[in-house]
């Protein structure tokens, strides 16, 4: 499509570089604490050996860099009991600003979703400034990622909790802006594992596999909202 029709809600169509609209999100579907009670058990249950180290990296980068004794605080937090969830509810504003569309993104791990299949949905993750310029440029600063684990890490001393997710971030293949006869961005290998804040997720992504597990097309025509978000500024 050549033109973007602007929604009545100004904040979701900000120019490049400005802050994105803050979507409210909510963790749902708590997994029984008999199975998962800390990061080690989470790693074992979901067969993701990197969760613990990536969580530490995330905490160091984002929270404890200014602390007096970061090593002590980290070890305390890493060994703390946690809660795991299988659903993230993200409220995405509707195009005509008459409410929100709720995106239920699932990551069921080894369990089946409604006794049918394992779910590990694709989501859009907002890229921070530290990432490479190509990711910033493509898809209006968002990268599709597979949602593996959702968990809540409580910090009893600070009387707060961190809502985190383990994701597999895909890379942009070829041109970072919609390209080719079909005008679609391609994503695929290499995949990078990350632990990110739940607040960085911006709803579901719809990917169509070209070569499964290697190359995907980001379906930008799945709804008007995705279309506008992807083409904003491109």
């Amino acid at each position, binding site marked *: *499509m*050549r*033109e973007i*029709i602007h929604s009545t809600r100004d904040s979701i169509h900000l120019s490049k570089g400005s802050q994105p609209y803050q979507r409210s999100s909510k963790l749902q579907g708590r997994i029984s604490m008999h199975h998962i009670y800390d990061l080690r058990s989470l790693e074992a249950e979901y067969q993701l050996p990197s969760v613990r180290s990536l969580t530490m990296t995330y905490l160091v980068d984002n929270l404890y860099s200014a602390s007096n004794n970061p090593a002590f605080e980290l070890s305390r937090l890493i060994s703390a009991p946690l809660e795991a969830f299988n659903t993230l509810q993200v409220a*995405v504003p509707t*195009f*005509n600003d008459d409410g929100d*569309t*709720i*995106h*239920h993104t699932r990551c069921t791990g080894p369990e089946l979703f409604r006794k049918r299949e394992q779910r590990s*949905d*694709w989501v859009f993750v907002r890229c921070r400034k530290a990432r490479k310029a190509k990711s910033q440029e493509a898809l209006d600063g968002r990268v599709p990622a597979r949602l593996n684990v959702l968990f809540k890490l409580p910090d009893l001393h600070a009387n707060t909790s961190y809502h985190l997710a383990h994701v597999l971030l895909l890379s942009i293949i070829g041109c970072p802006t919609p390209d*080719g*006869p*079909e*005008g*679609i961005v391609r994503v695929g290998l290499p995949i990078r594992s990350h632990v990110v804040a739940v607040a960085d997720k911006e709803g*579901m992504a*719809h*990917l*169509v*596999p*070209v*070569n499964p597990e*290697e*190359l995907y*097309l980001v*379906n930008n*025509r*799945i*709804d*008007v909202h995705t279309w506008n978000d992807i083409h904003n500024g491109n």
Partner: protein
Amino acid sequence: MMNAWIPLALLPIPPKRLDKISGYPVDAQELDALQVTHEIISSILSPLCNVSDVTSQSGIEMVCCDEKVRNCIPMLCGWLADHMENIIIHGISSNRCPICIAPPDQFGELSNASYAIRLHPTYAAAFHHSDIHILNSHGVKNINNALWHIPIEPHEIVRLDILHVLLLGMLVHLMKWVQEFLDHVGRLTIFDHIWSRLLPFPGFSRLNKAYRSVRQCQGKEMRNLCYVLLAAFAAALSRTSDTPAMASRHKVLCHNAILCVQYLTDFILMAQYQVHTHSTIESMKDYLRDFHAYKDVFLRFQASKAVKAAAKEASRDLREDHSQLLTSDKPQGKTSSKHRKLTQELRLETEELVHDFLTTGANYNFPKMHLISHFTDQISKYGSLPQYSTEICKASHKPLKDAYRRSNHLNAIPQIIRTYTRVHGFSMREKNLEQ
């Protein structure tokens, strides 16, 4: 919303297959049946004939839903119908446009200059003077049209229908072309594989089967399909891991086919916008122009069954000739590479012959291909089109069907009307009490 729709009448439907009666040809029977339908419509709309003259400002006093009496001037502003219903209402041939006088053999092309709109006063005069020539030249049936007696311009009540023209019309055609194209380039199985494994998304229902294994798609399924068609089609043509490499002559075709699908799906998606600006309308015009520029890539799939059969026979004959040529070619002592080259040349020749056969007899001259050219004008005049979609009318049929179900099925019409009126009256009363 549903209570804003009030049924005025249950129209009788003439039988689809008429009995052959000696001295009373089928054409005359059809014309008489159409005349009866128009008499009924005329009877229903007769209250509008006297009061809907805006210039006289006469009007009639009506009790509104807030129980206040107001002077109202009821007008016929639009008639939501699919193409065949429009044909009946406007009294024209089925291969004609109810809005303009575009000739049927030009429906497949996008005209730079728009065709003249239908002038029903001229047709009314021609009918009264029995001037069959004018009526026939514009595809108008020789009947006394009910719309001629109401102070409106009949072409202005036409509202193009997203459901029947786009979703169940053009999109169904596009899917047929896409399926045949994928079969032609050997990617249909991959497309089916991708199609049946698409992931769910809010507002998009998952498709569990391959498209070709679905017997009938309804409006909701077709709307769903529009969201994913381009990506699935592009993915099927791009896939390389488990498929043989595509022939170079097919690559150009694939490029054009993707562009054609892109322009039409974008047009359909944009036509469903609830809000439009000048730029979106201009974009729609551009998409339509570009779709027409690239649509010839699917032309061979528009060939009729007879043309396809003829092409098949011609290719079979040519292949027999080629096989004789190849068997006679071997004893001449040619090398295997030369023989392979000759085989390839002959295969290409056969393909070209089939292509020529199929494209010569094919065209895009069907009404819906022409009707989409009126979409942008309609949006400019009357606003976004989803509000005029017949989906709303179809949903309004449900209470009537329920009323039929509740009747004893003997002389059901009065019972349907009574039940429906009671249910509707109660629901309106409830709404007023809520306020």
